[in-house]
């Protein structure tokens, strides 16, 4: 994000930045580009009285990468889904991506509100890869891996920052407890935070087997959650 000379240093844009990357110095807004993740919130908030905030149209590949992971209105080339995520369990009643016997796990680094460097993303990816998990192929983080078996990431972008990035994978039920424990262990090595989640398909009796695994791994699940209520099918009603 760039600040034009028309800036009068009013500071109205400052609180809108989720990364706290804007400050007013000598009556001009200054953006710390190492902290700015190109999310575009300051611009889209439309609070600048002088139209002084502008997207840098000459983005380098690294800046564009930040934007892809941080601005939900940018579609990543590896997905047809806006933002840094995938359809995951939202369409599971149609795709059967997470069938019986497996769980889906997502570690969203930088969420809530802290942002993440990719070296932290790599630490988590490597910890999960140790259990031979299958990383979600249609996820922008997976597309940045140079080795999907080890979770190693492209070193060119390792110090770049994003609003958040999701390490997302499928895990056979018999490995879930170990992977969750590994994730807990690696959490102590991170500069940032992450939000962790897990999903699974209902058994025939309507129960969700993940709850026993969550307990065994020493985690507590939230009272609220997201439930696909099974109304999707291959043929839509036009």
């Amino acid at each position, binding site marked *: 994000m760039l600040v034009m000379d028309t800036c009068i240093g009013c500071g109205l844009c400052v609180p809108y930045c989720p990364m706290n990357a804007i400050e007013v110095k000598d009556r001009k807004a200054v953006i710390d580009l190492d902290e700015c993740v190109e999310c575009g919130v300051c611009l889209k908030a439309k609070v600048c009285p002088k139209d002084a905030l502008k997207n840098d149209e000459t983005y380098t590949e690294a800046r564009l990468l930040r934007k892809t992971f941080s601005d939900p209105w940018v579609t990543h080339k590896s997905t047809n889904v806006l*933002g840094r995520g995938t359809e995951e369990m939202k369409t599971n009643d149609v795709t059967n991506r997470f069938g019986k016997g497996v769980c889906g796990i997502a570690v*969203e680094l930088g969420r*809530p509100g802290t942002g993440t460097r990719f070296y932290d993303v790599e630490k988590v990816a490597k910890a999960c890869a140790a259990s031979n998990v299958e990383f979600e192929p249609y996820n922008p983080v997976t597309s940045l891996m140079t080795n999907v078996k080890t979770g190693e990431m492209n070193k060119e972008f390792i110090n770049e920052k994003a609003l958040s990035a999701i390490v997302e994978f499928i895990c056979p039920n018999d490995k879930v407890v170990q992977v969750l424990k590994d994730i807990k262990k690696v959490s102590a090595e991170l500069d940032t935070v992450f939000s962790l989640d897990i999903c699974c398909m209902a058994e025939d009796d309507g129960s969700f087997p993940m709850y026993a695994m*969550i307990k065994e791994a020493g985690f507590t699940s939230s009272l609220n*959650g997201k439930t696909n209520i099974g109304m999707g099918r291959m043929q839509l009603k036009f």
Partner: protein
Amino acid sequence: MTHTLHRRGTKESLRTDYIVFGITAQQFNGKDSAQVLKKFFDIVSPLHPTNMGDMRQGGMLTVADLPAGVQDNSIVHAVFNDLETLEEAVRRLKTADLGISIVVSSLCDDVAELAKRNNVKLHTQEVSLGIHGNLKKLPAEEFLHVTTQCGHGLIAANLVKSMVEKVKNGKITPRKASEEICKQCSCGVGNINRTEALLKDMAGIA
């Protein structure tokens, strides 16, 4: 994207936070699905959600005609403040039988009860296992109750702080402050009524 997961709050406050959304699978039934996803808005609008939106376009605070702009890869949302209205939305979507995937974000107990009452079979469930890592970086929990309503992280904790101060000083009404905050969420899943109540609490006004 787990954009409506990880919402934080007390159980009482989460009892005013129910989201239903529709999506199609791009590799399976996404083709020409815009015309079907549009019908989602026709079904939920008469129930007066506190917010509605489309991941492709924004929320109802910023987009005048949401149905007109729906695309095949849109994700369409409606946010309600009580279980009864959410349940009515689910009933109407079940009757319409559009074939799009329908997802409910709510207290898990509530969706289980809703399913029993309406003969709906829950397919897949996802829950949060909390926030981990360098927790020193987080703002105070009360701010997270607002900021986590935008799963994409577009609501800055500093914006919430600044709005609380403005509400305290009578510079903005809690309603207007809530709308300004929820406008930042590009999917329209911010709960405008709930945020208004949270701001009042934080500002110490009845």
